[in-house]
């Protein structure tokens, strides 16, 4: 079952490949050709793929949560410790598994993006600089999914049961939204609220790759006033990396203090 989910999470990103080559004709009224919007060209494609493919992370998140939940319910965690595995080794082995998946997934997305970009960018525009400008989104993508899966690992270690772990993730997400709305409309202004919210776990992951829609709109209508700061800043990566460390560290601490 989990194998199927892993395959799905690898295959789904390729659906963007299909989408990029698609011309949809709506009953002869008009033709929707997404490639005309320039979103499949360098450098925008880096932003587009990483943003959309990141939504497929839910498949592997389920695997992470069930993997840990099963360790508890099958009591294999207990048996592994009795056999001589240390709690630190246990957490690190799970983290290594997550990192390996993230690296592989990042590589897949990197290759897909290159392919789509190469096919869609007018050939006179393909230079080394244009191709790889904005490629920092790949780094952002890696940190984004790694932070998310680390959170899943922590939630699963905390909740022991898979379903409760998913509930924990969901609740934290909602709490973040409520906290942000309170900060913005009740206590402070937008700037302060954003300043505080960037340290929230889910927001920190989101900030790594902001929505690309307004960027594309601006591309076609430069006078549009909605401005999204989509630039990847080092402090955004630092915050996400901080959460990754905290999630793994507290997973270990929690496990160490717990009687199994």
């Amino acid at each position, binding site marked *: 079952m989990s194998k199927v989910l892993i395959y799905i999470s690898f295959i789904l990103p390729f659906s963007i490949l299909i989408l990029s080559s698609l011309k949809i004709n709506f009953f002869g009224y008009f033709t929707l050709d997404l490639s005309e919007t320039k979103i499949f060209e360098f450098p925008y494609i880096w932003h587009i793929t990483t943003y959309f493919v990141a939504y497929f992370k839910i498949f592997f998140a389920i695997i992470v949560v069930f993997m840990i939940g*099963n360790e508890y319910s*099958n*009591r*294999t965690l*207990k*048996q*592994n*410790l*009795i*056999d*001589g*595995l*240390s*709690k630190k*080794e246990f957490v690190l082995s799970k983290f290594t598994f997550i990192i390996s998946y993230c690296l592989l997934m990042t590589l897949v997305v990197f290759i897909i993006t290159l392919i789509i970009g190469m096919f869609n960018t007018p050939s006179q525009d393909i230079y080394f600089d244009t191709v790889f400008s904005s490629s920092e989104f790949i780094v952002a993508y890696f940190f984004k999914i790694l932070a998310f899966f680390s959170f899943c690992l922590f939630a699963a270690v905390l909740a022991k049961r898979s379903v409760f772990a998913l509930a924990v993730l969901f609740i934290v997400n909602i709490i973040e939204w409520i906290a942000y709305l309170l900060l913005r409309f009740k206590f402070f202004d937008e700037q302060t609220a954003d300043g505080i919210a960037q340290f929230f776990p889910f927001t920190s992951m989101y900030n790594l790759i902001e929505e690309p829609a307004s960027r594309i709109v601006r591309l076609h209508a430069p006078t549009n006033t909605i401005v999204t700061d989509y630039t990847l800043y080092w402090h955004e990566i630092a915050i996400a990396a901080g959460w990754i460390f905290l999630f793994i560290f507290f997973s270990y601490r929690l496990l160490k*203090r*717990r*009687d*199994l």
Partner: protein
Amino acid sequence: MKTILTLQNLSKNYGYVKAVQDLSFTIEKGNVYGILGPNGSGKSTTLGMVLNVVNKTSGKFHWFDGNVAVHDALKKVGAIIERPNFYPYMSAYDNLKLVCKIKNVSVAKIDEKLAVVGLLERKNSKFRTYSLGMKQRLAIASALLNDPEILILDEPTNGLDPQGIHQIREIIKEIAAQGTTILLASHLLDEVEKVCSHVVILRKGQKIYSGRVDEMVASQGFFELQTEKEDQLISFLEQDASFGTIKKEDDKIIAFLTAPLSAADFNQKMFNQGIVLSHLVKRKESLEEQFLILTENQSN
């Protein structure tokens, strides 16, 4: 003699409940130990603490000479706690391969140990297809993979059918005969009596005895007697200094010894008195009886 495990004033509280209190004992190499006690007396908690899955509240314990980390020491230990725990969707062989990896032993051991417990021909079946008896045997094979310095078994025959219980006991006896140190926790006293040379007895988290099984109660044993001339026998026994309590149970007379006396000497003596015995058995208290004597003494 080489010490394998030392406990010093080990305690564990679950909130207000004192599961284990000030427990101290040592396990020496080459003996077969039993940890005895009713359900809830702290047996599993004690094993959990020394096996790195339950955190101690206070006290100390160390494996071997105390120079290695607990999880490294456990690589030289084989232990089964409660029910067998394996990955259900993996085959027996793959499960054991994982254990080999944790314990740093060669995978060549897997077939050898599966043969010991008679599971070699089922090694590629998934764990979840096993019967409870087979699961328990696989757990024993897993615990034996590293040829452990000590084998720890917690209620190994729990929930098994008579055939399964017999198989497990035979395996344990075989392992004990090879000189492996064994620590067996059980509330089944006859199980412990059959294989153990030493016991630690727990009651409500406290140790009430630790030492050799045959030194548990200072007792010379007792005779079970039957004869036609009952009154004559009882009056003779009451006058003899080597007998203490005498009681009648069903149709048998039970006479407790206060001094050593062999069954042959006693029979000769009776014959000289003109009392012919139709039933004569010399026995020591069973572990169950000794256990009850000990726990009674403690509660008084």
